[in-house]
């Protein structure tokens, strides 16, 4: 069980920065009263961020991933969350073997 000093500092720096981003919103929220378009933009943050994180994997990795992502999206509107994840994972395994 070794612990490198530089690695430890890097981990602590990542942890501090991450905690800062997590609590910063708490202090901004008081001053944010949004309506209309601004509210629509704010409400769009969740899907916009989630999609941005996975877009490279889903769209530009290969056909198997792109088709599996589309299948997952269709399943997601009909199945509970875990069901959709299962469909997606099975789809990508099958497609990788086919394509």
């Amino acid at each position, binding site marked *: 069980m070794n612990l490198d000093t530089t690695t430890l500092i890097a981990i602590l720096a990542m942890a501090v920065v991450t905690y800062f981003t997590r609590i910063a919103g708490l202090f901004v929220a008081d001053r944010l009263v949004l309506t209309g378009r601004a509210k629509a933009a704010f409400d769009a943050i*969740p899907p916009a961020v989630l*999609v941005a994180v996975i877009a490279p994997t889903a769209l530009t990795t290969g056909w198997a*991933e792109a088709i599996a992502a589309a299948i997952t999206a269709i399943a997601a509107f009909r199945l509970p969350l875990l069901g959709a994840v299962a469909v997606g994972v099975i789809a990508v395994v099958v497609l990788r073997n086919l394509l």
Partner: protein
Amino acid sequence: MDQASPFVSTPRREIRAGLRDIAPVAVAALPIGLLFGAVAAAKGMSPLEVTLMSALVFAGGAQFAAIETWISPAPILTLTFATLLINARHVLMGASLTPKVRMSRVQTLLAYFFLTDEAWALSERRALERPVTGAYWFAMAVVLWANWTLSSTIGAILGSFLGDPERIGADFAFTALFIGLVAGFGRSRVTLVTVAASAGVAALVHYFIGAPWHVASGALAGIAAAYLAAPEEPRS
């Protein structure tokens, strides 16, 4: 004897709701944690270092990005900046969620240590119907945190014994999970425009510029698209 009304929230009921909501997420995150630990070990991190990173940073996206660029000795400034960039979304998530949580300021400061995409998305969904209580939040948070820390540690210890993660599709679980969470936000015109703009810009930026810039740029494109797609507000 007090009859529990279905409309009154008791801590026990809130905890049960939190556990029920987080269960599928924890199951989906399990192979991702194993995968992270295995990849980190392959890059030269010790199991103890993996445990510390998962327990203290507790942010999958940032951790995967860090591991992807991991060299020894660790480039502290580069890792810190990439982490800040990837996790900047937390600021918006916290700001959006704060009016909907029923916790004191001190409780919230502790609670937000556990802020993740998943816990936040589930809380936003729950907030459509009722406020998010501390019991609900911490039930979710502790399960997800323990799950992530343990699974990545086990992954680091097992390391190469796991075999090729792509063969069992484990690498795609994260993507499928996020697609499922996005679907929970519905199919309104504004949402569809948001998703299309974010996906398009993120994919292009990732392809031509590279990680981690696709996260911030894709998210901003989606937000801007929602602003433009939404009906103009009446003058007041």
